[in-house]
Structure formats: C-alpha cells, structure tokens
C-alpha cells in the first residue's frame, strides 16, 4: 500500500494489512506517523501525537 509522509513528502510502501490508528515511521525523515485513513489502497498519514504529560500506564 502506498503512503506519503506529510512532513517530508517521501513516498513509500507500507503493509497492506495496516490498520487505522497504527503508528509507523517515515522511511526517510524517521518521524512517527499515524494512519488516519485508507482510501483505495493508499494510506493517509498524519504526524502521530506526541507523548503528553498524562500519558502512560
């Protein structure tokens, strides 16, 4: 499945079984990206949420 990093515009392939909400890494700039939509074999990504002060277990 095709994906494009919204930060550096690098185009790369990700697994076809990727799910909404899954976090992946851009293969070029290394930023963490969240899958927010899947449309016709193309994954739409946005920068993943950063750890906030109340995150944890």
């Amino acid at each position, binding site marked *: 499945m095709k994906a494009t990093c919204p930060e550096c515009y690098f185009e790369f392939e990700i697994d076809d079984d990727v*799910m*909404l*909400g*899954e*976090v992946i890494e851009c293969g070029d700039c290394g930023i963490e990206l*969240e899958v927010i939509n899947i449309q016709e074999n193309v994954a739409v990504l946005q920068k*993943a*949420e950063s*750890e*906030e*002060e*109340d*995150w*944890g*277990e």
Partner: protein
Amino acid sequence: MEFSMVCNKLSWEEKSIIDAAKSKDVKVKIILNSNYFANLEKDNVPTEIVLQRSLSFVRGLYITAILDHFGHTVINSYKTSDICGNKLLTTLTLLKAGIPTPKAYCAFTEESALEALNELGYPAVIKPVIGSWGRMVALLKDQDFAKAILEEREVMGDVFQKIYYLQEYIFKPPRNMKQYLRRDKVSRDFRVFTIGDEVVAAMGRHELEGDWRSTATRGARTESLHITPEIEELAIKAAKVVEGEILGLDIMEGEELMVNEINHVSGFQALASSTGIDIGGRIVDYLMEKMKK
C-alpha cells in the same frame, strides 16, 4: 462476539489484542480517542464491553465516565482508573486495606514539603500524583537537592505538579546466594500482571543504565520472574481492593513485599517478551468470558 477498544493509537499491545481476537473469531471495534466525541444524551458505542487502553490518562478517565454513564462495562472501571491513575489515591486505598506500601507523605507547598521530608527522611522519592513512565520522578538524596527540585516545581510546575507526593526510597535487598554465585544483579522491582483474580505473568525490572528508575517502556532490562505464593497473594489482594480487572502492579521487595503503584492501562510488550506468555490472548479470553455472561 464483539468488544470495543478505546486507545490513543495501535501500539504493540493493542495490535496483539486485535490479533488474538481475530484468531478467536472475536470482532474488535477500535475507537481512537482523538476521533471520539459523544452527545452526552445519546450513546454511540455499539458494544456492551469496552476495553479502555488509552495512553492519555485524562482522556481515558473521562471517556470511561461517559461510557459508564451509558451503562457499558468498561475494563477497567472509572473507580479503578481514578484510583490507579492517582498515586495519592492509590496509597490511601492500599493503606486502608492494610496492604504494605512504601511510606508516603503529601504536601502542597515548598515549605511544607521540606517539613514533610524532614520527617520522612532522605533519600526520598518525589513523584507527580498523576504521571507514568518515570516522568518527573526524582530521587531526593538530600535537603539541598530537594530544595532545588521543589523550587523548580513551584516556579514552572502546573497545578498537579505542585501536589508533592513524597515516598520513602526502598533499598533493594542484598543478593541471595544464588544471585551472588551467578553475579546476578537484584532487580529493582517486579511488574506483576493480573487478569481477574489470576496472576498471568510477572517480570523483574532492573534500573536503566545510568539511572535509578526501572521503566521497561524506556528500555530497562527485564527478566521472567517466578511467581511465588507471596507475590501472588499480595497482587490479587491489591487488585481486589482497587476493583481492578486487568492490571499491572509494581511490587517492591524491601523489608517485606510491598505494592508501589498499580497501573490500570498496563503495557505488556516487555512482559510478553520476557515470559513468552500471550498476554493479549489471555485478555481476549477474559473478555470472551465476560461477554458470555
């Protein structure tokens, strides 16, 4: 069968739960808390059982409150989440039940915190009442250092960081003969994972390199732990007291075994890796039993 799972993102843990559910023909409705919104007069979650896996404590707590209001069975419940997510409430609950826990004080200003520390003694540990993964947890070795930390928090801290939760520092026990002969280090503490009234897995955690904390999520070395009857009894008793269904308990060995903290949205990647136990699968099995009732 179907259950919902509320989360910030699909981390390793959530993916392991989804994979386990798929293998058992159980459907999972994923609710990303960043997308979730609720009309407070109309329920919009289709399943009775909801597994709360939000990394964000505040979002998770309030979404649980909403779901609870609409009659869903949320694991863990609002009451459990409220207690376990707040170190002060956890300590008060454990003390009331007579469960061993490190000595702790609470103060609300720099001056009163220093007085509390004079009584508690050094070294001591300061922690934010709400927080996880070792964030802003500091080892106060002496009064000078305590003054510096408290001053910083008075100036730069938010409201919750100015609630000074102070805990005695628990020294590790000496190595036993087996550890001595193998030149093993004594683990800093144990993470014990309970589901229902059962201890499913446990691991020892060592301090991070160059640090005194032992957060597995930050890369602390872990190892499978033999679950003794004493550890099991303590963990189950503590889980019952906070009415928790799926918990990660931090247990320390000082002069006696004691419960340090209880995590209501416990990570388990390191635990699964250390022990080889399919914790995601065990969670799904538990949810399936609940769905059958």
